């Protein structure tokens, strides 16, 4: 079962949330971030090249122009491969664990998988950063202390959706976690 809805992130950009319910014990949430805008790309390239041309008129050295082209290309490739995240996915599988994937604009994917045995809970936290923002995070159990929390892992860090989107994801996750807790608590 698959459906798609559009939300907005904390800066006002448009996000698309795709939900896939594979089975009662396996759900996937896919948030697509706004793409690289042509306007900002053109602006940055023009600035860099104008600055290089200005330096060239001062120094009369054509190496500056080639260097500027080189830097722009490398910078763009680096940005697409290391910085620009296109899509963030959260896959939650009952009794296996929770998996977070970030796909970059160049196609690179970086995945983290947390086993269900380490997950204590999934909560929405509040943070104050010039205004109040909400973020979804996974709380991990502390092996030493039974009621303690060893780590807080935030989810959807670059998409930064607003509260309404987070609530949808939170409800679904809690359904699965409740089932998981019920089965693990019974003797």
């Amino acid at each position, binding site marked *: 079962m698959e459906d798609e809805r559009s939300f907005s992130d904390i800066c006002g950009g448009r996000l698309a949330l795709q939900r*896939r319910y594979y089975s009662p*014990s396996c759900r996937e949430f896919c948030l697509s971030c706004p793409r690289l805008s042509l306007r900002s790309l053109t602006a940055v390239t023009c600035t860099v090249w104008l600055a290089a041309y200005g330096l060239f008129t001062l120094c009369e050295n054509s190496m500056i122009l080639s260097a500027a082209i080189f830097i722009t290309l490398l910078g763009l490739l680096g940005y697409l491969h290391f910085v620009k995240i296109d899509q963030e996915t959260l896959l939650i599988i009952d*009794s296996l664990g929770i998996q977070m994937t970030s796909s970059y604009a160049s196609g690179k994917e970086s995945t*983290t998988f947390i*086993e269900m045995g380490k997950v204590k809970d999934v909560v929405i936290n509040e943070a104050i950063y010039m205004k109040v923002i909400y973020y979804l995070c996974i709380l991990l159990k502390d092996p030493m202390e039974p009621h303690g929390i060893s780590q807080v892992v935030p989810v959807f860090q670059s998409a930064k959706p607003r509260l309404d989107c987070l609530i949808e994801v939170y409800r679904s996750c809690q359904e699965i976690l409740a089932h998981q807790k019920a*089965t693990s608590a019974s003797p």
Partner: protein
Amino acid sequence: MGLVSRGAAAAGVGAASAVVRPGPPHAVPHPIPTPPPEGAALGSSRVPGMVLKAFFPTCCASADSGLLVGRWVPEQSSAVVLAVVHFPFIPLQVKELLAQVHQAGRVGLAVLGTWCHRRQEAEESLGHFLEGLGTIFSHEPWLQLCREQGSKLWSCKATRRQVPPCPGAPYEDQVMLVFYDQRKVLLSQLHPPAALPDCLAGDAAPSAGGLAAVFDTVARSEALFRSDRFDDGPVRLSHWQSDGVEASILAELAKRASGPVCVLLACLLSLVSAASACRLFKLWPLSFVWSKLSVCEQLRHRLEQLTLVFSTQKAENPTQLMRKANVLVSVLLDVALGLALLSWLRGKDRIGPLAEALVPVADHVAEELQHLLQWLMGAPAGLKMNRALDQVLGRFFLYHLHLWISYIHLMSPFIERILWHVGLSACLGLTVALSILSDIIALLTFHIYCFYVYGARLYCLKICGLSSLWRLFRGKKWNVLRQRVDSCSYDLDQLFIGTLLFTILVFLLPTTALYYLVFTLLRLLVVAVQGLMHLLVDLINSLPLYSLGLRLCRPYRLAAGVKFRVLEHEAGRPLRLLMQINPLPYGRVVHTYRLPSCGCHPTHPWGSLCRKLFFGELIYPWRQRGDKQA
């Protein structure tokens, strides 16, 4: 292989065992009630209501029908399937094989269920037959996986025969299929390694958390994967090596050759280390010189590393093996770079011009220092110095410089020969060449070091005198016994002389401070250059190149974890996932497998360095080897 019913005759087989061939149920002769294997006892303690996870190897997805053999982990309600046993088989021999693997790898395997790969239509009889097998190999829960030929849709069933522990729990469990690549999981190593204590006796090892148990199971069952389909063993298995056991001629040859080669090299290295530990080298002047030269440090380090690599003991765990491999690759790269440097030096015959340029460079440096001292003796930067002290210090340093230049000129005929031998040492490695270069720089700038020490000592003396006289000025003194400042009543003449001395020292302070500043800056410059070289040497010494290469070419060997992908799914069918290995990021590879270096780093934090500079204490930029252990 035809699944049409064959004759029921168990030809040539004793009465105690029955060859099980596929066929209609009535053809199975005398199913012998066998005592339930150990697997049944494990299976009874499981978590009810949890989804049953079946880890299935991708290589067996196209195998013919048969029995599923693997390990059942009750705490996570997961069944790790390792291989498929094909018909015909004798149940007793299957159990013997499982017992053998249990002994070899200390992992408790059992027959987990049946696997049915329907190749033609209407093979219902096979289904019933397979269900009947459940009575021979009883295991809780009994897994039944079925697949249509050429279709991606599977059906799974897990049934229980025992009364469920709590009422209301179903007789059948929900099954989730997780496919894994058996070869990659076998060869990979999880980081951080799940610390499993070696079990002393008895059944399966205490299970590691979660998915580490899957890796552990596959790694321990290596004995199961030793036979392929070309062997004439009693039991026919399907696993990742069933198409032919993987082996490489080069690896085998290397293994055979490594034994004697290691023994030979270990003897050589022990001879060298015995020679270097000889009593002659412990005599005072030599031992002092050896401890100061960084070449000796580097050579000692390399000797230790090579002894480790060529020791005849086998590596106990994968970490040690990786360390040995890293050291070997690092040494080989070092030697290769050194030889490249050597060939570059010899190629255009650069040693001659280099040697000829060295003495004029040293002369030039000495001349610049002379100019500097003349400048200091005048009015440097417009400051007015105390003429007498200025002249004394300036003349003293000038004379020292003059001695140094004469020494260099004395050495000049021998420089080319020395450089030639130094260049030859590059074949021991680039790190050795760099260390020698750093030592040569230290020797050539020895006069700067001397000037720094003189200036620092003078300045330090002055500061000490000033601080104690300042205390006298205020009517206090330093109590050595109590290590604190106490008040004290001085006599008038003590106060008079003290104040006089204090005034003299204060007015002479700028001159001394300026000399100290200039020579400290020069010394720091030289230390910076040497530090850069040491940094490069350290980098070559400690970078784990083999691990980085492995991460680049065989990323599944170094695993940080796993990742899952949901495969094509249809409602009503069990969920199918693909488990892949998530490789370790490069930063963590370097961090985990870094080789220990000499430790010749500048170790002072900035605060204490500034304090030492202010008070004129001498700075030793890197710890000597003796201090490292303290």
